[in-house]
């Protein structure tokens, strides 16, 4: 999107002031003043360190160039199958995340009221001491019900370790992650339908159909890269109520009413069944309850004409699309990787998986791959069993739901409406900007205000951080080694995030933070259990206190007796050999036969596995489940079904609010990044140009957008690229924390107007179910 009215030059004022350029270097870098600039031009002093990016959830492999302990450039790591030898604009801007002058530098203790941003610098020990005193008090009040402590985590890396600490060691049942404000319906629909979350093989497909996922502006590797590099003889068709870059670059673009993709899927299913276009031998071999599904689809008469009335896509185009899809050799209905939009989202994903199944595109090239990931053994720890810990409640009323990450909106609703079965008093929040990331910010604020203790671990002074009592500065992904991770099912590999530079200021890695916290908390929290936990009391009688402590696993810092480097070494050498460890440390990536298989084809395009060694098809039993009994039992549709409530209807003068992102931003995590602000210096609301004309709205006009829960002000961008009854703007803007110099009070936050509705199958927030009005101000 190019918006002419936005003057980037105004950033000359704020932006450049932050950057001091090395004057005696030919290679100039934009580095803040607090760094000693690298002065040497010699290549001898250059160190290249392989790492994994963390500018989004994706994890691509990069190589950091370090000169005199300063990271001066990031290049792609050509060895990693997943990221295909590229670094996106955000990855390249990681340097500015590392050297962001607004970074959290020291532990902070709140001295004002929550949200006013008044903090005092404290030592790590003072911060831990404060947390300990509060937790002792809280757990006494709650008679050692550990579930009164809630933890949440929005970062992919180290999440399992974080869970091990708070749910395993400390013993709470409550953990929440971003899944319920992200893509849990997709994961759930795939698992429940074919028993695996699968992996989509875009590279191997000759016909890719995408509904709404914006792969060219929301980059996911390898999917986006494989699409962008355009495979030979591949056709890409995109459905979207907004002409995204993905839609504009597709071979065919079908504009569609918001929230009606399911109707299109059902019509495609109808056409395939009625005309017997589907892969009969595949269906016979793998489908369960196909006859039920067939009857259901035919009885409901999901014809192309019917779907035209729902989707606004002409019937003959739906017919043509379906025929092309089923005539393709290896068609793929791309399942997306995006937040939950409509209340029918789970059923939509199910219908997509079933269409892939009807085409035989499961467990084969170009379809949903089951594959063979490299298995990494879990590090075992001994977790205490607490007799007084109560069950989690955020999945009450949710039919499936993720047992791991739960349901944020259901959880928050129960807290703020005082319907939680027991008081929740403490919250540990890691890299999870709750104040910006979920619909209806005012409820999140209320929830946090109800806590006796809020602790935030983050790299930036986010809106959520300034609601905390204690802020613990975590180092960025470039300043730490993380545990080795297994990636991919089709072209599997291991990748290691190495430490590029030492942690800056007083920041620490999550492991070091939990180690310190664990050492501080172990004894005092054990003493509380001793008072309230009868099982522990019995154990102490039997074994003595010391032994009961050790055997019961009450040493909360147990996992951190060894540092990450040592843990990696032991884990990797034991399971994959010394050579694998050496390569992971030196090159960042390893997989069996990497040296034999990995080769450059042309101009930075690599082959990672020869075609006959990729795991397109594996010998694994699976079935495609058309009918889910549990849904029927709970009053939901056991098979994908259209309901009247799914119809796209917007009152006169109203618009359906849809949301998304710019290619240069990862939600609120990057909107303070000085480099990325070059390309997305604020957000604008897209409104159809013909509608805007009637409303007398021009480019750059300030408009007020109002929903049932709030209103925001934002600049307008009239365009022919959006549905006349929808408006769109990018998520993640307008921080309320004035410590975020670049994102503070800039643009608008969608979650101030998106209503907090959630679907009941996975408890996921439905982001596209809010209607708004818009007026020029």
């Amino acid at each position, binding site marked *: 999107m*190019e918006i002419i009215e936005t003057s980037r030059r105004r950033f000359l004022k704020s932006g450049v002031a932050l950057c001091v*350029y090395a004057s005696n270097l030919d290679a100039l*870098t934009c580095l803040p003043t607090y760094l000693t600039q690298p002065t040497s031009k010699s290549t001898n002093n250059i160190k290249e360190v392989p790492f994994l990016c963390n500018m989004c959830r994706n994890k691509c492999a990069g190589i950091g160039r370090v000169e005199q302990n300063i990271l001066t450039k990031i290049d792609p790591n050509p060895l990693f199958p997943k990221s295909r030898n*590229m670094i996106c604009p955000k990855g*390249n801007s990681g340097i500015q995340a590392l050297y962001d002058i607004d970074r959290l530098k020291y532990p902070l203790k709140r001295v004002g009221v929550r949200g006013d941003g008044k903090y005092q610098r404290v030592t790590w020990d003072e911060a831990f001491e404060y947390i300990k005193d509060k937790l002792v008090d809280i757990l006494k009040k709650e008679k050692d019900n550990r579930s009164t402590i809630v933890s949440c985590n929005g970062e992919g890396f180290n999440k399992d370790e974080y869970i091990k600490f708070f749910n395993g060691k400390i013993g709470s049942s409550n953990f929440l992650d971003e899944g319920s404000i992200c893509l849990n319906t997709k994961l759930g629909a795939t698992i429940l339908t074919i028993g695996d979350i699968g992996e989509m093989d875009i590279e191997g497909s000759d016909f890719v159909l995408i509904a709404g996922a914006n792969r060219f502006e929301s980059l996911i590797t390898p999917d986006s890269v494989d699409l962008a590099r355009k495979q030979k003889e591949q056709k890409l068709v995109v459905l979207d109520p907004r*002409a995204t870059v993905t839609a504009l670059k597709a071979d065919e673009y079908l*504009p569609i009413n918001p929230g009606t993709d399911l109707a299109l899927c059902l019509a495609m299913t109808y056409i395939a069944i009625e005309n017997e276009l589907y892969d009969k031998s595949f269906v016979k071999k793998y489908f369960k309850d196909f006859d039920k599904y067939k009857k259901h689809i035919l009885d409901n008469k999901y014809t192309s004409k019917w779907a035209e009335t729902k989707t606004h896509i002409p019937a003959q185009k739906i017919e043509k699309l379906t025929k092309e899809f089923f005539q393709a050799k290896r068609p793929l209905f791309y399942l997306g990787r995006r937040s939950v939009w409509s209340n029918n989202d789970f059923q939509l994903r199910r219908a997509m998986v079933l269409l892939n199944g009807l085409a035989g595109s499961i467990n084969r090239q170009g379809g949903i791959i089951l594959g063979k990931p490299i298995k990494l053994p879990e590090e075992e720890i001994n977790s205490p069993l607490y007799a007084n810990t109560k069950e989690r409640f955020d999945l009450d009323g949710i039919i499936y739901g993720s047992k791991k990450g739960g349901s944020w909106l259901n959880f928050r609703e129960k807290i703020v409406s005082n319907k939680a079965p027991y008081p929740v008093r403490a919250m540990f929040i890691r890299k999870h900007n709750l104040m910006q990331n979920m619909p209806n910010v005012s409820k999140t604020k209320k929830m946090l205000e109800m806590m006796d203790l809020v602790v935030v671990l983050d790299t930036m002074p986010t809106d959520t951080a300034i609601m905390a009592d204690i802020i613990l500065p975590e180092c960025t992904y470039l300043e730490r080694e993380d545990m080795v991770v297994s990636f991919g099912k089709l072209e599997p590999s291991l990748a290691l995030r190495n430490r590029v530079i030492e942690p800056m200021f007083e920041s620490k890695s999550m492991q070091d933070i939990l180690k310190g916290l664990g050492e501080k908390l172990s004894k005092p929290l054990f003493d509380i259990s001793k008072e309230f936990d009868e099982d522990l009391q019995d154990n102490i009688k039997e074994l003595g206190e010391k032994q009961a402590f050790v055997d019961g696993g009450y040493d909360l810092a147990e996992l951190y007796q060894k540092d990450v480097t040592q843990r990696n070494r032991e884990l990797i050498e034991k399971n994959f050999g010394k050579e694998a460890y050496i390569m992971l440390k030196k090159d960042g990536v390893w997989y069996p036969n990497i040296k034999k298989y990995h080769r450059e084809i042309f*101009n930075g395009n690599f082959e990672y596995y020869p075609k006959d060694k990729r795991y397109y098809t594996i010998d694994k039993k699976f079935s495609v489940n058309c009918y889910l009994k549990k849904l029927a039992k709970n009053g939901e549709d056991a098979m994908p079904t259209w309901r009247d409530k799914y119809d796209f209807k917007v009152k006169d003068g109203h618009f359906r609010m849809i949301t998304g992102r710019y290619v240069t931003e990862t939600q609120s995590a990057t909107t303070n990044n000085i480099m990325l602000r*070059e390309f997305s210096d604020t957000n604008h609301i897209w409104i159809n140009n*013909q509608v805007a004309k009637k409303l007398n709205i021009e480019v750059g006009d300030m408009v007020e957008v109002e929903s049932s829960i709030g209103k925001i002000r934002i600049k307008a961008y009239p365009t022919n690229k959006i549905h006349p009854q929808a408006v769109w703007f990018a998520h993640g803007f307008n921080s309320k924390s004035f410590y975020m110099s670049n994102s503070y009070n800039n643009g608008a936050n969608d979650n101030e107007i998106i209503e907090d509705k959630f679907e009941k199958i996975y408890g996921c927030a439905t982001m596209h179910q809010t209607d708004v009005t818009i007026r020029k101000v």
Partner: protein
Amino acid sequence: MARYAMAFDYKLCINCKACEVACKEENGILLGADKHRLWINVKEPSGNFWDLDRDDVEYMPTQCNQCENPPCLEACPTKAIYIDDNGIVRLYKELCDLTQLCIKACPYDARYINSKDKIVDKCNFCSDTRLNRGLITTACQITCPSKVRIFGDLDNPNSEINQILKERNYFQLQPNKETKPKLFYLI
């Protein structure tokens, strides 16, 4: 000795800005300004939403054309501009006195005032940075998700750029100006 050039498989460009960020980070380009060193020319669709005409949609990366016959060089009264051993149009920084005649002479609008160094600046295929360190990649080319850019030596018959120029048709910008540009747009 080389004759460096760049080919663009430009229809693959998704306008993600990775090249621009990589360039700014590698070469220390001032923030807050458009079209410094490299940029993408964007053409949007026409028509109304339900019937968009996408034929014109285009993301076209561009930058200094590294002309073999550079009008900027001719125009410079202080002889600050020269062609180096790699065929790259370069600048003797100390000779540049900002007459800006090169900016006017450049048919590709590739030159701009670098207010920090007080010179007229433009893309030099990472000569000061990557090539100087012995690499034969540019920051924009190596990072590109679509692998739009093919950088290499026209004098090396085995270079990838020569291979692709043999295999594919291409056009160049403003050939009538007889600047002999070294950017090639593959079709």
